[in-house]
């Protein structure tokens, strides 16, 4: 029977071993049993590992070796903007004066941190073309919730209680409808048309006085710019609704186009995509929201402001605020990184970022369009979606081709999303990849396409080079084993 590549650490070690020694109390004080009732004290110690520091280090080092990562190779995961995470950002966030500060210190002890947050708020306003920013949300979906709750508060404040619906295109990311639902709205889906863009007619047919907002990603999840955006925004606003901008795809327009100019009322940004903070294997993120005049009164508290004297303060006195969406001020460590990232580029550099991102995506698209089906012929923005249906017909679906890519040292694209393209492969190269890397990817994809024709079993049994072979995801859900037990 094959074993786990690395045992689960909880069962490892021997009683009495430890990986770190803790200072003795070294004061005169009663033991715990004397200050707490016996019933409150733990009877059975938790079954944690008992290992030396070395063995613990080895365990996690070995686990790390089992991951793909940006620093190891190409990661063209659509919608995720797997760009390079600059090392100086990591350095900055770990500075003593950044990492070891407490949110309840007096503001006088936090002027450097507050300046960073203040400037970042300003810069994000400039970048989005909007008025006011809160850095509090912890991720994209959290920003969405914040934005939609503000929209709810806006309509409520106007006494407009009928607006119970949020419109969401069928190409939208899952968090959009989920957020609207969590915020107590009914979700109404808007169809895409043959161009892959919002079907204007369908949209208009659904616009009425029950609509609180339209949530839009632009470019959308097909990587296509919603060319009718000005018309869309007029229609939604005319119907009394607001426009929510999902900033997950902001890398496409950074420094080039601004949501505020497109007529959006609120934007969330994913600092962990566009602004290069690391994904960390699933987080942390940071999802600041930036709003226009209409929503400004409803922003969560606190917000950082700058006195006339140049002193930075936390402002909480905002009567119409929706309140807090998170304890403290958001994921400050990510703010520091995004701040450093913006400093490295300036306006000119950020525009170059989006232009190179768009260039890279179009380059890949142009070079793959012979071998794979491209549902949308027009130029894409920072990513594009192609279909594996031609290959599926030959017995190798998108999932299998993705797994096969692993053997070339490349992470599979996002697959089966967006839902409106069959056998979707969503490819986002990002601007930090060189032409050489893109060319290697093109070669790999062509090789796979050829294998589908000539040696489909090679694709069907992929991946071949990983320490574990294809994982049975159905089994995991059918017989859930969700924890180690002693």
């Amino acid at each position, binding site marked *: 029977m094959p074993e786990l590549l690395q045992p689960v650490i909880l069962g490892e070690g021997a009683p009495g071993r430890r990986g770190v020694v803790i200072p003795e109390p070294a004061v005169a004080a009663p*033991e715990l049993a004397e200050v707490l009732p016996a019933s409150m004290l733990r009877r059975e*110690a938790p079954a944690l590992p008992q290992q030396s520091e070395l063995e613990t280090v080895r365990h996690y080092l070995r686990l790390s070796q089992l991951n793909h990562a940006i620093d190891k190779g190409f990661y063209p995961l659509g919608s995720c903007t797997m760009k390079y995470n600059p090392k100086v950002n990591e350095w900055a966030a770990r500075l*003593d004066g950044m990492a070891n500060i407490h949110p309840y210190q007096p503001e006088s002890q936090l002027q450097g941190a507050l300046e960073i947050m203040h400037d970042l708020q300003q810069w994000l306003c400039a970048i989005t073309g909007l008025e006011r920013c809160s850095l509090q949300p912890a*991720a994209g979906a959290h920003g969405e919730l914040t934005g939609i709750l503000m929209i709810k508060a806006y309509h409520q404040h106007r006494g407009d209680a009928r607006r119970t619906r949020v419109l969401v295109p069928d190409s939208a990311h899952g968090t959009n409808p989920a957020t609207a639902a969590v915020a107590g709205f009914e979700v109404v889906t808007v169809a895409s048309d043959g161009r892959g863009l919002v079907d204007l007619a369908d949209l208009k047919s659904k616009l009425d006085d029950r609509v609180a907002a339209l949530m839009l990603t632009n470019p959308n999840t097909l990587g296509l710019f919603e060319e009718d955006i000005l018309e869309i925004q007029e229609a939604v606003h005319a119907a009394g609704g607001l426009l929510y901008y999902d900033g997950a795809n902001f890398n496409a327009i950074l420094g080039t186009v601004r949501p505020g100019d497109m007529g959006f009322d609120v934007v969330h940004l994913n600092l962990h995509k566009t602004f290069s903070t690391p994904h960390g294997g699933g987080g942390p993120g940071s999802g600041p929201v930036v709003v226009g005049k209409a929503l400004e009164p409803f922003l969560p508290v606190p917000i950082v402001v700058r006195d006339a004297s140049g002193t930075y303060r936390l402002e909480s006195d905002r009567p119409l605020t929706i309140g807090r969406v998170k304890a403290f001020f958001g994921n400050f*460590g990510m703010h520091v990184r995004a701040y450093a990232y913006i*400093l490295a580029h300036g306006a000119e550099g950020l525009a170059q970022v989006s232009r190179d991102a768009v260039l890279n995506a179009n380059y890949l698209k142009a070079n793959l369009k012979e071998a794979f089906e491209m549902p949308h012929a027009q130029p894409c923005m920072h990513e594009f979606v192609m279909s594996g249906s031609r290959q599926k017909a030959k017995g190798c679906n998108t999932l299998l081709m993705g797994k096969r890519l692993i053997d070339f040292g490349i992470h599979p694209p996002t697959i089966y999303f967006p839902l409106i393209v069959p056998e979707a492969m969503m490819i986002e190269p990002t601007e930090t990849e060189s*032409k050489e890397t893109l060319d290697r990817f093109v070669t790999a994809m062509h090789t796979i396409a050829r294998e589908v024709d000539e040696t489909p079993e090679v694709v069907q049994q992929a991946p071949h080079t990983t320490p574990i072979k294809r994982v049975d995801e159905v089994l995991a859900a059918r017989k859930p084993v969700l924890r180690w037990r002693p």
Partner: protein
Amino acid sequence: MTYAYLPHTPADRAAMLDSIGVSSMDALLSHIPKALREVRLDLPRPHAEAEIQQRLARLAARNVSASQQASFVGAGVTHRYRPAAVDQIASRSEFYTAYTPYQPEVSQGTLQAIFEFQSMICELTGMDVANASMYDGSTAVAEAALMAVRVTNRPRVLVCGSVHPEYEAVTRTYAQGPGLVIDSLPTRADATDVAAVKAALTPDTSALIVQVPGVLGTVADLAGLADVVHAAGALLVVVADPIALGVLEAPGRWGADLVVGEAQGLGNAMSLGGPHVGYMACRDAHVRQLPGRICGMSQDAEGRPCFTLTLQTREQHIRREKAASNICTNQALNALFSTIHLALLGPEGLRDVARTSALRAHHLADRLTRLPGCRLAHPESPFLSEFVLTSPVPATQLRDALLARGILAGLPLDTWWPERTHDLLIAVTEMNAPEELEALVAGIAAVVSAQGGQRSQEAVHA
């Protein structure tokens, strides 16, 4: 201008445009309305890396860090020892530059670490199953409230006064979406008053939320609470400090249905309040209502045990508007920090952290309450490593006076409750060496006696 993160040379760009078959970048963007494309951003000029470092170092130097003063502020964020190995291992590129482990064949490292995190949380809380993390303690509480509402189908939530005010605030914000009603049990620091709970539970109440140790450091007795709550058809949600669980009985043993909390103290920097990591654990029966990612065991094509994300039909990317939550990105890396820290500590190390902190806190409380006019605000309640000192000097004044001595004495409670002007919330950890305790005692003694002197002087002159 050249940028270190952008590889393309002008020649690269030209060759690529050529390959695409367009003449310029502008041509490639021509489908965007031209008016929209004319932006000029008011941003700083591009900085060389050395300049970025110098600027950020200067900004950092304008904050006072916990290594520069003796810090006794806790209240949900604690200055604890982070073993050097935690950051050095978790900072490996393979961990922090990976995405969510949607492709298990190239993500076993992240997946197994999540599985270990879940398992450790279960061990600490005494629960059946835990998720891969929540944004933080506050949103974990809010999501627990929403989950209780889903499970019980009841629209009210009862929040005990021992819950951190910011956690309650976030829960109230989240409640605005579905329009839930949040009821408060009056702020009480002492052992949970079972009778008061019973009285406050309504047929619409989905859950009682209590916190151990409470935000004021006191430890409530959870015995019997679950029975009362369950009898009313509601769930018991316990917000617990995972380090305290190194010595306190696991909430699962007391019959909790949901245990949530903040694990920052385990391996995560304070970082001005984030990124931290919330956790959430429940009973097997409720796992399909649990928000967030869950990692489970499976097998590969050759029968080798391995890991994968599972039960994804709870999640937004599969279920969209019917998902249990909208959460997507969570705090995976912070959970990894906590996991490595717990692995290094083991059961004995964890106990030592809690014990050293608590014994020092009791020593400090004992010393402080001998000072003239100083007493515990809640002498009737047992506490662990955080306590409220009532002093004759207004707490903010006391705190500010001690800053000059390099001591951050605690959190004045009028931050949250304007009427508690003389109460200072003091947290002690293994980072507060005995000399720091001495310094705090001496500092408070000095301020208090100066004030006493001033007062008697005033009395003389009056």
